[in-house]
Protein backbone atom coordinates (compact mmCIF):
# COMPACT_ATOMS: atom_id res chain seq x y z
CA UNK A 1 0.00 0.00 0.00
CA UNK A 2 2.76 2.35 1.12
CA UNK A 3 4.78 1.44 -1.97
CA UNK A 4 2.01 2.60 -4.27
CA UNK A 5 1.28 5.75 -2.29
CA UNK A 6 4.88 6.99 -2.21
CA UNK A 7 5.32 7.21 -5.99
CA UNK A 8 1.92 8.86 -6.25
CA UNK A 9 2.90 11.44 -3.62
CA UNK A 10 6.24 12.02 -5.33
CA UNK A 11 4.47 12.45 -8.65
CA UNK A 12 2.00 14.91 -7.13
CA UNK A 13 4.73 16.94 -5.41
CA UNK A 14 6.84 16.93 -8.57
CA UNK A 15 3.85 18.02 -10.60
CA UNK A 16 3.07 20.81 -8.14
CA UNK A 17 6.65 22.09 -8.22
CA UNK A 18 6.68 22.02 -12.04
CA UNK A 19 3.36 23.82 -12.06
CA UNK A 20 4.62 26.43 -9.60
CA UNK A 21 7.73 27.03 -11.71
CA UNK A 22 5.68 27.22 -14.87
CA UNK A 23 3.17 29.69 -13.40
CA UNK A 24 6.01 31.75 -11.91
CA UNK A 25 7.78 31.92 -15.28
CA UNK A 26 4.52 32.88 -16.92
CA UNK A 27 3.88 35.59 -14.34
CA UNK A 28 7.33 37.06 -14.91
CA UNK A 29 6.65 37.07 -18.66
CA UNK A 30 3.66 39.37 -18.27
CA UNK A 31 4.44 43.06 -18.10
CA UNK A 32 2.11 43.93 -15.21
CA UNK A 33 3.05 41.08 -12.87
CA UNK A 34 6.74 41.43 -13.82
CA UNK A 35 6.51 45.07 -12.79
CA UNK A 36 5.07 44.04 -9.41
CA UNK A 37 7.86 41.46 -9.06
CA UNK A 38 10.67 43.94 -9.77
CA UNK A 39 9.28 46.69 -7.56
CA UNK A 40 8.52 44.38 -4.62
CA UNK A 41 11.89 42.62 -4.88
CA UNK A 42 13.81 45.89 -4.95
CA UNK A 43 11.77 47.44 -2.15
CA UNK A 44 12.14 44.38 0.02
CA UNK A 45 15.89 44.17 -0.60
CA UNK A 46 16.40 47.84 0.24
CA UNK A 47 14.26 47.49 3.38
CA UNK A 48 16.09 44.32 4.38
CA UNK A 49 19.51 45.93 4.01
CA UNK A 50 18.33 49.03 5.87
CA UNK A 51 16.83 46.93 8.68
CA UNK A 52 20.07 45.02 9.26
CA UNK A 53 22.05 48.26 9.23
CA UNK A 54 23.99 47.65 6.02
CA UNK A 55 22.23 50.49 4.25
CA UNK A 56 21.58 53.90 5.76
CA UNK A 57 20.41 57.20 4.41
CA UNK A 58 22.50 60.11 5.58
CA UNK A 59 24.60 62.91 4.19
CA UNK A 60 27.97 61.28 3.52
CA UNK A 61 29.61 62.68 0.38
CA UNK A 62 31.35 60.08 -1.74
CA UNK A 63 33.80 57.41 -0.67
CA UNK A 64 34.72 53.82 -1.36
CA UNK A 65 37.15 51.48 0.32
CA UNK A 66 37.57 47.79 0.98
CA UNK A 67 39.09 45.83 3.84
CA UNK A 68 42.53 44.34 3.32
CA UNK A 69 41.40 40.71 3.09
CA UNK A 70 37.86 40.78 1.67
CA UNK A 71 37.53 37.08 0.76
CA UNK A 72 38.09 35.67 4.25
CA UNK A 73 36.40 38.65 5.93
CA UNK A 74 33.23 38.08 3.91
CA UNK A 75 32.74 34.73 5.65
CA UNK A 76 33.22 36.01 9.20
CA UNK A 77 30.08 36.28 11.34
CA UNK A 78 28.67 39.68 12.22
CA UNK A 79 26.13 40.65 14.90
CA UNK A 80 22.65 39.39 14.04
CA UNK A 81 21.47 35.93 13.11
CA UNK A 82 22.94 34.75 9.78
CA UNK A 83 24.71 38.07 9.26
CA UNK A 84 28.25 38.34 7.94
CA UNK A 85 30.94 40.95 7.85
CA UNK A 86 30.92 43.76 5.29
CA UNK A 87 34.02 43.96 3.12
CA UNK A 88 33.59 47.40 1.59
CA UNK A 89 31.99 50.75 2.20
CA UNK A 90 30.31 52.80 -0.48
CA UNK A 91 29.18 56.36 0.24
CA UNK A 92 26.97 57.99 -2.38
CA UNK A 93 25.98 61.46 -1.18
CA UNK A 94 22.82 60.47 0.66
CA UNK A 95 23.31 56.76 1.21
CA UNK A 96 25.95 54.64 2.92
CA UNK A 97 26.17 51.00 1.86
CA UNK A 98 28.23 48.53 3.88
CA UNK A 99 28.75 45.80 1.32
CA UNK A 100 28.54 42.30 2.74
CA UNK A 101 28.34 39.77 -0.10
CA UNK A 102 26.70 37.12 2.10
CA UNK A 103 24.11 39.53 3.48
CA UNK A 104 23.30 40.79 -0.02
CA UNK A 105 22.93 37.22 -1.31
CA UNK A 106 20.72 36.29 1.63
CA UNK A 107 18.61 39.42 1.25
CA UNK A 108 18.33 38.95 -2.49
CA UNK A 109 17.21 35.35 -2.06
CA UNK A 110 14.43 36.30 0.36
CA UNK A 111 13.54 39.35 -1.75
CA UNK A 112 13.13 37.21 -4.89
CA UNK A 113 10.84 34.85 -3.01
CA UNK A 114 8.76 37.73 -1.70
CA UNK A 115 8.72 39.33 -5.16
CA UNK A 116 7.44 36.17 -6.87
CA UNK A 117 4.88 35.63 -4.12
CA UNK A 118 3.50 39.12 -4.49
CA UNK A 119 3.55 38.95 -8.30
CA UNK A 120 1.51 35.73 -8.17
CA UNK A 121 -0.81 37.20 -5.55
CA UNK A 122 -1.35 40.16 -7.86
CA UNK A 123 -2.26 37.78 -10.68
CA UNK A 124 -4.50 35.73 -8.45
CA UNK A 125 -6.39 38.83 -7.39
CA UNK A 126 -6.70 40.36 -10.85
CA UNK A 127 -7.31 37.14 -12.81
CA UNK A 128 -11.00 36.58 -13.60
CA UNK A 129 -10.73 32.87 -13.01
CA UNK A 130 -9.00 33.07 -9.67
CA UNK A 131 -10.57 30.72 -7.19
CA UNK A 132 -11.92 33.17 -4.69
CA UNK A 133 -8.51 34.65 -3.79
CA UNK A 134 -8.51 38.19 -2.57
CA UNK A 135 -6.22 40.62 -0.86
CA UNK A 136 -5.76 38.00 1.87
CA UNK A 137 -3.37 36.08 -0.38
CA UNK A 138 -1.03 39.05 -0.45
CA UNK A 139 -1.15 39.25 3.32
CA UNK A 140 -0.46 35.51 3.46
CA UNK A 141 2.78 36.15 1.61
CA UNK A 142 3.60 39.24 3.61
CA UNK A 143 3.63 37.47 6.98
CA UNK A 144 6.51 35.08 6.18
CA UNK A 145 8.26 37.97 4.45
CA UNK A 146 8.15 39.93 7.68
CA UNK A 147 9.29 36.91 9.67
CA UNK A 148 12.25 36.34 7.39
CA UNK A 149 13.16 40.00 7.41
CA UNK A 150 12.96 40.45 11.17
CA UNK A 151 15.20 37.45 11.87
CA UNK A 152 18.40 39.26 11.12
CA UNK A 153 17.61 42.49 12.94
CA UNK A 154 15.85 40.91 15.89
CA UNK A 155 17.97 42.34 18.73
CA UNK A 156 17.81 45.81 17.17
CA UNK A 157 14.05 45.40 16.94
CA UNK A 158 13.96 44.65 20.67
CA UNK A 159 15.78 47.90 21.37
CA UNK A 160 13.31 49.86 19.29
CA UNK A 161 10.32 48.16 20.91
CA UNK A 162 11.84 48.28 24.39
CA UNK A 163 11.35 44.57 24.96
CA UNK A 164 13.51 42.66 27.43
CA UNK A 165 14.72 39.48 25.76
CA UNK A 166 14.72 36.08 27.34
CA UNK A 167 16.75 33.09 26.17
CA UNK A 168 13.60 31.67 24.59
CA UNK A 169 12.95 34.81 22.59
CA UNK A 170 16.54 34.92 21.37
CA UNK A 171 16.33 31.29 20.28
CA UNK A 172 13.11 32.08 18.48
CA UNK A 173 14.82 34.86 16.53
CA UNK A 174 17.41 32.44 15.21
CA UNK A 175 14.56 30.34 13.74
CA UNK A 176 12.66 33.20 12.13
CA UNK A 177 14.61 33.21 8.87
CA UNK A 178 14.27 29.48 8.04
CA UNK A 179 10.63 29.55 9.17
CA UNK A 180 9.97 32.65 7.05
CA UNK A 181 11.64 31.17 3.98
CA UNK A 182 9.75 27.91 4.45
CA UNK A 183 6.44 29.73 4.70
CA UNK A 184 7.27 31.80 1.61
CA UNK A 185 7.82 28.59 -0.34
CA UNK A 186 4.55 27.12 0.93
CA UNK A 187 2.78 30.36 0.09
CA UNK A 188 4.30 30.33 -3.41
CA UNK A 189 3.05 26.82 -4.10
CA UNK A 190 -0.37 27.60 -2.66
CA UNK A 191 -0.96 30.83 -4.58
CA UNK A 192 0.35 29.41 -7.85
CA UNK A 193 -2.20 26.62 -7.47
CA UNK A 194 -4.99 29.16 -7.48
CA UNK A 195 -3.97 30.63 -10.83
CA UNK A 196 -5.19 29.38 -14.17
CA UNK A 197 -1.95 28.34 -15.92
CA UNK A 198 -3.49 28.95 -19.32
CA UNK A 199 -4.08 32.58 -18.47
CA UNK A 200 -0.44 33.49 -17.88
Amino acid at each position, binding site marked *: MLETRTPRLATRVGGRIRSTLSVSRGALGRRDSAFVFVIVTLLYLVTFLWAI*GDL*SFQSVGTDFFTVSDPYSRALEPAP*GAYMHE*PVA*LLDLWVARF*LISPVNVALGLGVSLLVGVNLALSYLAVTQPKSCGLGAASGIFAAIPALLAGSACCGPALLVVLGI*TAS*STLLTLFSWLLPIGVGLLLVSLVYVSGQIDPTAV
Partner: protein
Amino acid sequence: MQSRHSRRTFLAIAGGGLAGLAGCLDDTPGGGSGGSDGDTSLSGDGKSDGGDSQAETRLPLREAEVPLSRDLEEYASSAMRGAAKDAIPSIGDPKFGSVSDGNSMMDPGDPVFGVELDGDARAYPQHILVWHEIVNDQFGDRGITVTYCPLTGTAVGFERGPVSFGVSGKLINSNLVMYDRETNTWWPQVLGTGVRDDLIGKALNEVRVTWTTWERWQSVHPETSVLTEDTGYVRNYDDDPYGSYNPRGGYYDSGQLQFNVINRDSRLDPKEVVIGARTADGAMAFHKDRLSEAQLLETTVEGTSYLAAYDPDLHTGYVYRNPDGESYEARSGSFVTPDGTSHQAGALPLEEINAFDAMWFVWAAFYPETTLEE
Protein backbone atom coordinates in the same frame (compact mmCIF):
# COMPACT_ATOMS: atom_id res chain seq x y z
CA MET B 1 36.63 17.79 39.24
CA GLN B 2 35.78 21.44 39.07
CA SER B 3 35.82 23.22 42.38
CA ARG B 4 32.93 25.40 43.43
CA HIS B 5 33.51 29.00 44.36
CA SER B 6 30.92 30.45 46.67
CA ARG B 7 30.54 33.92 48.06
CA ARG B 8 31.88 32.65 51.37
CA THR B 9 34.94 31.28 49.63
CA PHE B 10 35.61 34.61 48.07
CA LEU B 11 35.14 36.55 51.22
CA ALA B 12 37.65 34.21 52.81
CA ILE B 13 40.04 34.76 49.94
CA ALA B 14 39.40 38.43 50.31
CA GLY B 15 40.85 38.30 53.81
CA GLY B 16 44.18 38.61 52.07
CA GLY B 17 43.51 42.30 51.79
CA LEU B 18 43.43 44.82 49.05
CA ALA B 19 46.87 44.37 47.68
CA GLY B 20 45.56 43.30 44.32
CA LEU B 21 44.47 46.71 43.20
CA ALA B 22 47.79 48.31 43.85
CA GLY B 23 50.10 45.40 43.17
CA CYS B 24 48.77 42.09 42.01
CA LEU B 25 49.00 38.80 43.81
CA ASP B 26 50.25 37.31 40.62
CA ASP B 27 50.34 33.56 40.64
CA THR B 28 51.53 33.06 37.13
CA PRO B 29 55.07 31.95 36.52
CA GLY B 30 56.92 34.82 35.03
CA GLY B 31 53.90 37.06 35.36
CA GLY B 32 53.62 40.27 37.25
CA SER B 33 52.12 43.65 37.35
CA GLY B 34 52.60 45.32 34.07
CA GLY B 35 52.43 42.23 31.94
CA SER B 36 54.35 39.09 31.35
CA ASP B 37 57.94 38.96 30.27
CA GLY B 38 56.88 36.45 27.70
CA ASP B 39 59.20 33.74 29.00
CA THR B 40 56.42 31.60 30.39
CA SER B 41 56.47 28.25 28.68
CA LEU B 42 53.09 26.93 27.65
CA SER B 43 51.80 23.80 26.11
CA GLY B 44 50.30 24.26 22.68
CA ASP B 45 46.84 25.13 23.90
CA GLY B 46 48.05 27.29 26.71
CA LYS B 47 46.92 24.78 29.32
CA SER B 48 49.01 23.02 31.90
CA ASP B 49 49.41 19.33 31.39
CA GLY B 50 50.30 18.58 34.97
CA GLY B 51 48.14 17.96 37.97
CA ASP B 52 47.20 21.63 38.39
CA SER B 53 43.51 22.02 37.65
CA GLN B 54 44.01 25.55 36.37
CA ALA B 55 45.71 26.58 33.17
CA GLU B 56 49.04 28.26 33.05
CA THR B 57 48.60 31.57 31.42
CA ARG B 58 50.53 34.66 30.59
CA LEU B 59 47.63 36.81 31.80
CA PRO B 60 48.59 38.87 34.84
CA LEU B 61 46.14 37.57 37.43
CA ARG B 62 45.37 37.67 41.12
CA GLU B 63 43.02 35.90 43.45
CA ALA B 64 39.51 37.25 43.15
CA GLU B 65 38.65 39.48 46.06
CA VAL B 66 35.51 41.22 44.95
CA PRO B 67 32.35 40.26 46.80
CA LEU B 68 30.21 37.78 44.95
CA SER B 69 26.59 37.11 45.73
CA ARG B 70 26.45 33.85 43.80
CA ASP B 71 28.51 30.88 42.80
CA LEU B 72 30.59 31.60 39.75
CA GLU B 73 29.03 28.65 37.96
CA GLU B 74 25.66 30.28 38.55
CA TYR B 75 26.80 33.40 36.72
CA ALA B 76 28.04 31.25 33.86
CA SER B 77 24.80 29.31 33.65
CA SER B 78 22.82 32.54 33.47
CA ALA B 79 24.70 33.65 30.35
CA MET B 80 22.59 34.56 27.34
CA ARG B 81 23.74 34.50 23.76
CA GLY B 82 23.67 38.02 22.37
CA ALA B 83 25.76 37.29 19.28
CA ALA B 84 28.10 34.69 17.85
CA LYS B 85 31.64 34.52 19.23
CA ASP B 86 33.74 37.32 17.71
CA ALA B 87 30.74 38.56 15.70
CA ILE B 88 31.52 41.81 17.50
CA PRO B 89 35.16 42.08 16.48
CA SER B 90 37.67 43.39 18.99
CA ILE B 91 40.31 45.80 17.72
CA GLY B 92 43.69 44.12 17.71
CA ASP B 93 45.81 46.70 15.94
CA PRO B 94 44.54 50.08 17.11
CA LYS B 95 45.59 53.16 15.13
CA PHE B 96 45.81 56.49 16.92
CA GLY B 97 45.57 60.03 15.71
CA SER B 98 46.03 63.52 17.08
CA VAL B 99 43.63 65.93 18.74
CA SER B 100 42.78 67.39 15.34
CA ASP B 101 41.81 63.90 14.14
CA GLY B 102 39.59 63.63 17.17
CA ASN B 103 38.03 67.01 16.46
CA SER B 104 37.21 65.96 12.91
CA MET B 105 35.32 62.86 13.98
CA MET B 106 33.69 63.97 17.24
CA ASP B 107 31.63 66.77 18.69
CA PRO B 108 32.98 68.26 21.91
CA GLY B 109 30.30 66.61 24.03
CA ASP B 110 30.72 63.11 22.59
CA PRO B 111 31.76 60.52 25.17
CA VAL B 112 35.26 59.08 25.24
CA PHE B 113 36.97 56.63 27.55
CA GLY B 114 40.27 58.01 28.70
CA VAL B 115 43.30 56.08 29.89
CA GLU B 116 46.45 57.68 31.22
CA LEU B 117 49.39 55.45 32.01
CA ASP B 118 52.94 56.60 32.65
CA GLY B 119 52.16 60.00 31.15
CA ASP B 120 50.66 58.54 27.97
CA ALA B 121 47.08 59.72 27.56
CA ARG B 122 44.76 58.05 25.07
CA ALA B 123 41.10 58.58 24.27
CA TYR B 124 38.87 55.77 23.04
CA PRO B 125 35.75 57.25 21.43
CA GLN B 126 32.49 55.63 22.50
CA HIS B 127 31.18 55.79 18.93
CA ILE B 128 33.96 53.41 17.85
CA LEU B 129 33.92 51.10 20.84
CA VAL B 130 30.17 50.62 20.59
CA TRP B 131 30.95 48.50 17.51
CA HIS B 132 33.96 46.64 18.90
CA GLU B 133 33.69 46.65 22.71
CA ILE B 134 37.31 45.61 23.19
CA VAL B 135 40.60 47.23 22.18
CA ASN B 136 43.73 45.18 22.76
CA ASP B 137 46.23 47.97 23.18
CA GLN B 138 49.85 48.38 24.16
CA PHE B 139 51.29 51.08 26.42
CA GLY B 140 55.02 50.67 26.05
CA ASP B 141 55.65 47.14 27.28
CA ARG B 142 52.30 46.95 29.05
CA GLY B 143 49.53 45.09 27.32
CA ILE B 144 46.27 46.79 28.22
CA THR B 145 42.78 45.93 27.09
CA VAL B 146 40.16 48.66 27.14
CA THR B 147 36.64 47.32 27.25
CA TYR B 148 33.22 48.89 26.88
CA CYS B 149 29.80 47.36 27.25
CA PRO B 150 27.10 49.54 25.63
CA LEU B 151 24.24 47.68 27.30
CA THR B 152 25.49 48.38 30.81
CA GLY B 153 27.36 51.65 30.23
CA THR B 154 30.60 50.32 31.68
CA ALA B 155 34.15 50.99 30.51
CA VAL B 156 36.88 49.07 32.32
CA GLY B 157 40.55 48.54 31.59
CA PHE B 158 42.53 45.39 32.34
CA GLU B 159 46.14 44.29 32.25
CA ARG B 160 46.41 41.61 29.59
CA GLY B 161 50.12 40.86 29.33
CA PRO B 162 50.71 39.45 25.83
CA VAL B 163 47.27 37.80 25.70
CA SER B 164 44.44 39.34 23.70
CA PHE B 165 40.75 39.33 24.48
CA GLY B 166 37.72 38.84 22.26
CA VAL B 167 33.98 39.26 22.58
CA SER B 168 32.39 35.91 23.47
CA GLY B 169 28.94 37.05 22.36
CA LYS B 170 27.57 35.97 25.75
CA LEU B 171 25.96 38.33 28.18
CA ILE B 172 25.67 37.95 31.94
CA ASN B 173 23.34 40.47 33.55
CA SER B 174 23.34 42.19 30.14
CA ASN B 175 27.06 42.70 30.57
CA LEU B 176 29.82 41.95 28.07
CA VAL B 177 31.50 38.58 28.62
CA MET B 178 35.04 38.68 27.29
CA TYR B 179 37.13 35.62 26.60
CA ASP B 180 40.88 35.43 26.56
CA ARG B 181 42.46 33.94 23.47
CA GLU B 182 44.86 31.81 25.46
CA THR B 183 42.58 29.71 27.69
CA ASN B 184 39.12 30.66 26.39
CA THR B 185 38.03 31.53 29.91
CA TRP B 186 34.92 33.69 30.23
CA TRP B 187 35.44 37.05 31.93
CA PRO B 188 32.33 39.15 32.64
CA GLN B 189 33.53 42.72 32.37
CA VAL B 190 31.99 44.07 35.59
CA LEU B 191 33.25 41.16 37.70
CA GLY B 192 36.66 41.02 36.03
CA THR B 193 36.74 37.47 37.34
CA GLY B 194 36.83 34.17 35.44
CA VAL B 195 33.49 32.43 35.72
CA ARG B 196 34.03 29.39 33.56
CA ASP B 197 36.76 27.08 32.39
CA ASP B 198 40.30 26.91 33.59
CA LEU B 199 40.80 30.25 35.25
CA ILE B 200 37.56 30.27 37.20
CA GLY B 201 37.95 32.34 40.34
CA LYS B 202 40.98 34.25 39.13
CA ALA B 203 40.72 37.99 38.69
CA LEU B 204 42.19 40.36 36.14
CA ASN B 205 44.15 43.40 37.25
CA GLU B 206 42.13 46.52 36.53
CA VAL B 207 43.31 49.74 34.98
CA ARG B 208 41.42 52.96 35.51
CA VAL B 209 39.32 54.11 32.57
CA THR B 210 37.66 57.51 32.82
CA TRP B 211 34.30 58.04 31.16
CA THR B 212 34.21 61.67 30.11
CA THR B 213 33.67 63.82 27.03
CA TRP B 214 36.10 64.53 24.25
CA GLU B 215 36.12 68.22 25.14
CA ARG B 216 36.93 67.59 28.79
CA TRP B 217 39.55 64.92 28.07
CA GLN B 218 41.50 67.00 25.60
CA SER B 219 41.40 70.06 27.84
CA VAL B 220 42.99 68.05 30.67
CA HIS B 221 45.27 66.09 28.32
CA PRO B 222 46.07 68.43 25.39
CA GLU B 223 48.69 66.00 24.05
CA THR B 224 46.34 63.04 24.06
CA SER B 225 46.18 60.62 21.18
CA VAL B 226 42.84 59.30 20.05
CA LEU B 227 41.74 55.98 18.61
CA THR B 228 40.77 56.45 14.96
CA GLU B 229 38.10 54.83 12.84
CA ASP B 230 40.83 53.00 10.91
CA THR B 231 40.01 49.76 12.73
CA GLY B 232 40.37 47.33 9.85
CA TYR B 233 36.60 46.79 9.86
CA VAL B 234 33.77 48.36 7.91
CA ARG B 235 31.21 49.93 10.21
CA ASN B 236 28.89 52.89 10.11
CA TYR B 237 30.64 54.79 12.86
CA ASP B 238 28.21 57.70 12.45
CA ASP B 239 25.48 55.51 13.86
CA ASP B 240 25.01 54.04 17.32
CA PRO B 241 22.77 50.97 17.13
CA TYR B 242 21.51 51.52 20.68
CA GLY B 243 20.78 55.24 20.80
CA SER B 244 22.85 58.31 21.52
CA TYR B 245 24.73 59.99 24.37
CA ASN B 246 24.97 63.47 22.92
CA PRO B 247 22.12 64.09 23.59
CA ARG B 248 21.19 61.06 25.60
CA GLY B 249 18.47 58.99 23.95
CA GLY B 250 17.31 55.57 22.84
CA TYR B 251 18.31 52.57 24.95
CA TYR B 252 20.64 54.70 27.05
CA ASP B 253 17.76 56.80 28.26
CA SER B 254 14.90 54.32 28.47
CA GLY B 255 13.74 52.44 31.53
CA GLN B 256 13.76 49.15 29.63
CA LEU B 257 16.48 46.52 29.73
CA GLN B 258 17.28 44.52 26.63
CA PHE B 259 18.23 41.31 28.41
CA ASN B 260 17.13 39.75 31.66
CA VAL B 261 19.26 40.22 34.76
CA ILE B 262 19.65 38.05 37.86
CA ASN B 263 18.65 40.74 40.35
CA ARG B 264 16.68 43.99 40.07
CA ASP B 265 16.86 46.87 42.51
CA SER B 266 14.43 49.80 42.47
CA ARG B 267 16.47 52.15 44.63
CA LEU B 268 17.34 54.03 41.43
CA ASP B 269 16.01 54.00 37.87
CA PRO B 270 17.79 51.27 35.88
CA LYS B 271 19.82 53.57 33.64
CA GLU B 272 20.87 56.08 36.31
CA VAL B 273 24.65 56.30 36.36
CA VAL B 274 26.54 55.34 39.48
CA ILE B 275 30.25 55.26 40.17
CA GLY B 276 30.86 51.77 41.44
CA ALA B 277 33.75 50.29 43.35
CA ARG B 278 34.28 47.06 45.23
CA THR B 279 36.80 45.70 47.67
CA ALA B 280 37.07 42.76 49.99
CA ASP B 281 34.76 44.69 52.33
CA GLY B 282 31.97 44.81 49.78
CA ALA B 283 30.56 46.83 46.92
CA MET B 284 29.61 50.49 46.95
CA ALA B 285 27.91 52.83 44.52
CA PHE B 286 27.79 56.60 44.41
CA HIS B 287 25.08 58.27 42.37
CA LYS B 288 27.07 60.29 39.85
CA ASP B 289 24.76 63.29 39.60
CA ARG B 290 24.53 63.48 43.37
CA LEU B 291 28.31 63.25 43.65
CA SER B 292 28.75 66.10 41.18
CA GLU B 293 26.50 68.26 43.37
CA ALA B 294 28.00 67.26 46.71
CA GLN B 295 31.63 66.98 45.46
CA LEU B 296 32.31 64.52 48.25
CA LEU B 297 30.32 61.49 49.39
CA GLU B 298 31.15 59.03 52.11
CA THR B 299 30.00 55.54 52.85
CA THR B 300 30.78 52.71 55.23
CA VAL B 301 31.15 49.12 54.10
CA GLU B 302 31.56 46.42 56.71
CA GLY B 303 32.75 49.01 59.18
CA THR B 304 35.34 50.58 56.88
CA SER B 305 34.96 54.13 55.62
CA TYR B 306 35.23 55.01 51.94
CA LEU B 307 34.85 58.30 50.19
CA ALA B 308 34.22 59.43 46.65
CA ALA B 309 35.72 62.69 45.38
CA TYR B 310 34.34 64.47 42.34
CA ASP B 311 36.58 65.80 39.58
CA PRO B 312 34.74 68.64 37.82
CA ASP B 313 37.26 68.86 34.98
CA LEU B 314 36.54 65.34 33.79
CA HIS B 315 33.09 64.94 35.38
CA THR B 316 34.22 61.76 37.09
CA GLY B 317 34.71 60.40 40.56
CA TYR B 318 37.53 58.70 42.44
CA VAL B 319 36.93 56.31 45.29
CA TYR B 320 39.27 55.93 48.25
CA ARG B 321 39.53 53.68 51.25
CA ASN B 322 39.56 55.85 54.35
CA PRO B 323 40.21 53.35 57.16
CA ASP B 324 40.88 55.99 59.80
CA GLY B 325 37.76 57.91 58.87
CA GLU B 326 39.73 61.10 58.26
CA SER B 327 37.62 64.13 57.61
CA TYR B 328 37.99 65.75 54.20
CA GLU B 329 36.41 68.96 53.02
CA ALA B 330 35.52 69.85 49.46
CA ARG B 331 36.56 73.41 48.58
CA SER B 332 36.07 74.75 45.06
CA GLY B 333 37.25 71.67 43.22
CA SER B 334 39.90 70.66 45.74
CA PHE B 335 39.83 68.49 48.81
CA VAL B 336 41.38 69.66 52.03
CA THR B 337 42.81 67.17 54.51
CA PRO B 338 42.63 67.57 58.29
CA ASP B 339 46.15 69.01 58.29
CA GLY B 340 45.09 71.71 55.84
CA THR B 341 46.78 70.45 52.67
CA SER B 342 44.82 70.62 49.43
CA HIS B 343 44.57 67.84 46.85
CA GLN B 344 42.89 67.24 43.53
CA ALA B 345 40.14 64.64 43.39
CA GLY B 346 42.40 62.12 41.67
CA ALA B 347 45.32 62.53 44.07
CA LEU B 348 44.05 62.21 47.63
CA PRO B 349 46.62 60.72 50.05
CA LEU B 350 44.53 57.60 50.55
CA GLU B 351 44.40 54.17 48.96
CA GLU B 352 42.56 54.54 45.67
CA ILE B 353 40.09 51.85 44.69
CA ASN B 354 39.40 51.41 41.00
CA ALA B 355 35.99 52.83 40.20
CA PHE B 356 34.00 53.13 37.02
CA ASP B 357 30.70 54.43 35.73
CA ALA B 358 27.90 51.90 35.45
CA MET B 359 24.22 51.89 34.83
CA TRP B 360 22.58 51.23 38.19
CA PHE B 361 20.79 48.09 37.08
CA VAL B 362 23.97 46.19 36.26
CA TRP B 363 25.73 47.23 39.43
CA ALA B 364 22.75 46.08 41.50
CA ALA B 365 22.47 42.90 39.45
CA PHE B 366 26.05 41.84 40.17
CA TYR B 367 26.20 43.32 43.67
CA PRO B 368 22.75 43.11 45.29
CA GLU B 369 24.15 44.05 48.70
CA THR B 370 25.91 47.17 47.45
CA THR B 371 25.70 50.35 49.45
CA LEU B 372 24.28 53.30 47.55
CA GLU B 373 25.00 56.93 48.31
CA GLU B 374 22.57 59.28 46.66
